[in-house]
């Protein structure tokens, strides 16, 4: 009784006593070009405990002993592991037996080829190794399918897992479109840049004075020019940046973006160029492209296709842009003849924009934060 009591009490101080590691195996299911492969890492200790590996009984497992046990290991594993593709059983075969080390010792590594016939996703795993001899054994299962990455821990109480089909290319593309729209929607510096350029679109410069434009056609052409120039320019540099052809330090990029907003708004107050604004837009659009690239990088580009991500994101940005234009232009055209437009929107508005962008420039050059994070 006393002994019984003792090991209870002394067990209690598990608070300070721990080490080694409970039993884990590591199962990685990867799909390369839709061909499934599995890699199963099993602790040699666990294998020995379950099926015996130590042929000469010297308390050590050598490479020789491991190799000799391959067929035994195979039959143990294959009788306790089911991998199915779309309900169809995949026949595993050991392509190679290797060795690896983890924090608690040596592991046998089984590289498995899976023959699932024509069946593909969704994949399921039913894992039953070791639970009958070690009920705290777990298997850390990772599933890698191009852009889908997930990790699941299987245990005696949870022996099965199904992996949903990877996100289709279409859905992924839509995600990026969504991000693109969102980014320009949230990117106040991009919005203000565009607005600064669009404000005078409904006006004509005559003798260095602003006059309301006459026809919608010329307004439309001017706007189209701006939008196209911005699109082409930022698409160009976005692509170059994402493919690492050109890399610019982000602090520079962000500062130049702020500067671009100032210049565009300043041009409204002291108009140097008007109908050739698209040139200005193009020039600064190049910088904005680098800004978009850093956002895209943060989203985590899919491995499958950078092109997918870029095209999706870019189209998202264009759509967002289009929404801004559609929201703004009709209103501007309607109000262009009113003096309130000239004084309030164009003049005062531009001054306000210069003010905000000025603070951004200050913040970004000096790496401070004054305004709440609105601009990117």
């Amino acid at each position, binding site marked *: 009784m006393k002994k019984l009591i*003792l090991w209870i009490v002394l067990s209690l101080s598990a608070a*300070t006593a721990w080490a080694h590691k409970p039993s884990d195996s590591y199962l990685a299911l990867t799909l390369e070009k839709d061909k499934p492969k599995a890699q199963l890492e099993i602790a040699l200790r666990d294998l020995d405990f379950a099926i015996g590996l130590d042929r000469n009984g010297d308390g050590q497992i050598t*490479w020789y002993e491991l190799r000799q046990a391959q067929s035994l290991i195979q039959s143990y594993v294959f009788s306790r592991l089911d991998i199915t593709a779309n309900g169809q059983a995949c026949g595993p075969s050991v392509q190679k037996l290797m060795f690896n080390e983890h924090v608690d010792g040596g592991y046998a590594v089984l590289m498995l080829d899976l023959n699932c016939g024509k069946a593909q996703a969704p994949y399921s795993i039913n894992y039953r190794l070791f639970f009958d001899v070690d009920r705290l054994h777990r298997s850390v299962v990772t599933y890698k399918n191009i852009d889908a990455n997930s990790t699941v821990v299987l245990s005696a109480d949870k022996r099965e897992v199904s992996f949903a089909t990877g996100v289709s290319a279409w859905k992924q593309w839509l995600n990026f479109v969504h991000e693109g729209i969102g980014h320009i929607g949230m990117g106040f510096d991009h919005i203000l840049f565009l607005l600064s350029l669009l404000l005078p679109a409904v006006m004509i410069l005559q003798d260095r004075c602003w006059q309301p434009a006459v026809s919608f056609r010329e307004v439309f052409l001017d706007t189209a020019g701006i939008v196209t120039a911005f699109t082409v320019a930022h698409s160009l540099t976005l692509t170059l940046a994402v493919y690492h052809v050109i890399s610019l330090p982000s602090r520079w990029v962000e500062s130049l973006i702020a500067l671009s907003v100032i210049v565009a708004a300043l041009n409204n107050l002291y108009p140097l160029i008007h109908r050739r604004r698209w040139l200005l837009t193009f020039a600064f659009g190049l910088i904005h492209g680098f800004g978009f690239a850093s956002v895209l990088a943060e989203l985590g580009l899919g491995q499958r296709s950078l092109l997918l991500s870029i095209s999706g994101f870019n189209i998202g940005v264009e759509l967002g842009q289009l929404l801004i234009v559609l929201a703004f232009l009709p209103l501007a055209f309607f109000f262009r003849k009113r003096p309130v437009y000239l004084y309030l929107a164009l003049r005062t508005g531009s001054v306000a924009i210069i003010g905000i962008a000025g603070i951004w420039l200050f913040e970004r050059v000096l790496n401070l934060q004054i305004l709440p994070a609105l601009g990117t």
Partner: protein
Amino acid sequence: MKHIFIFLISFAAMAATAMPVTPSHDDQVLQILPTRLMPSKERIALLNANAAWRAAPLDLDAINTLARLYIEQTRETTDPRYLGYALALLSPWANKADVPLRIRFVRATIAQRNHQFDVALNELNLILKQDPNQSEAWLMRATIEQVQGNYAAARNSCSKLYDFAALMVGMVCTAQVDGLSGKAQQAIQRLDALLNLRQAGLTTDIRQWMLLTRIDLAQRLGREDQVANGFKTLLAAEKVSPETKAAYTDWLLAHRRYQEVINFAAQDLRDDGLLLRLAIAESALHSPSAQNHIDLLKDRYAAGHLRGDRVHLREEARFTLELLKQAKAALTLAEANWNVQREPADARILLAAALAAGEPEKALPVKNWLQQSGIQETSLRQQALAIRGIKS
């Protein structure tokens, strides 16, 4: 979204650190089995118990014997795999409602060992409901309640032991609780009386338990020479428990006796608790092997996380604070730990992390605990003065 990204990166980094290889020689030793490192007496005992169990897998005696041997292994070596082996023996009752008391008790022991205190208490309560005379269950309940900082309940559970023949055990149990609730003086006197009285009749294990408790009490009262003597006695024993080793190295660290920690702890790096203290000592002395040990510990905690275990939050919090110097992350761990257990060491790390992270108000629970328990911990109380809120 960002968090998923970061997680994936770190997982990829972790997974990428070790790549499978093809060994070059047939003779290359890939793994040393634990049986090789086990004293032959224990190995034989395990073999026999295993054989007995295989012959009768549903025999409660056979299960109990083997389970106890497994759990004893975990206790001595800190190797948690044995707990899994023990739990596997109980598989026939895994999803049953009608479970024999002895099986429940083994379950409770395993759960308690894994810091699943609620699970353990549940099993214990079921046992005691059916048979209130199970003194071992009362004792385990007392110790869990103590770890959880529930001293009133612990004292009550200890007192149940007086009703049975386990009078002495009950007294040591009460002494422990007393030591944590401001009555360390009386507790030590009682323990001394017991030790003098029963010197000859004590088994090694019980004696070790009493001595370790006494060291704890002496520390609380600031009697350093008694602490030193206590450790000297314990360390001279044939088998030194991991708890003793951890307590000893902690004491050395508190006194900045870093080289002694290094000399002592370098013996067995499989014990993560000891490895942590070793790394702390090496780090303090700017020893070149510190980084290696820090990396080892990082890998071990990471492996635990991967698996979904949250067993050793206290140690991990201490590691994160003292070695990785990440106060905020340490605070999160320390808070999660405090939800599970509330021993002085848990209070210590929560307080230290909160102060280091510049969020002293997060350590308010420690202040409450100090007040409610009345525990004599001068250094903790001094530090706790930094926390606004309840006056100590």
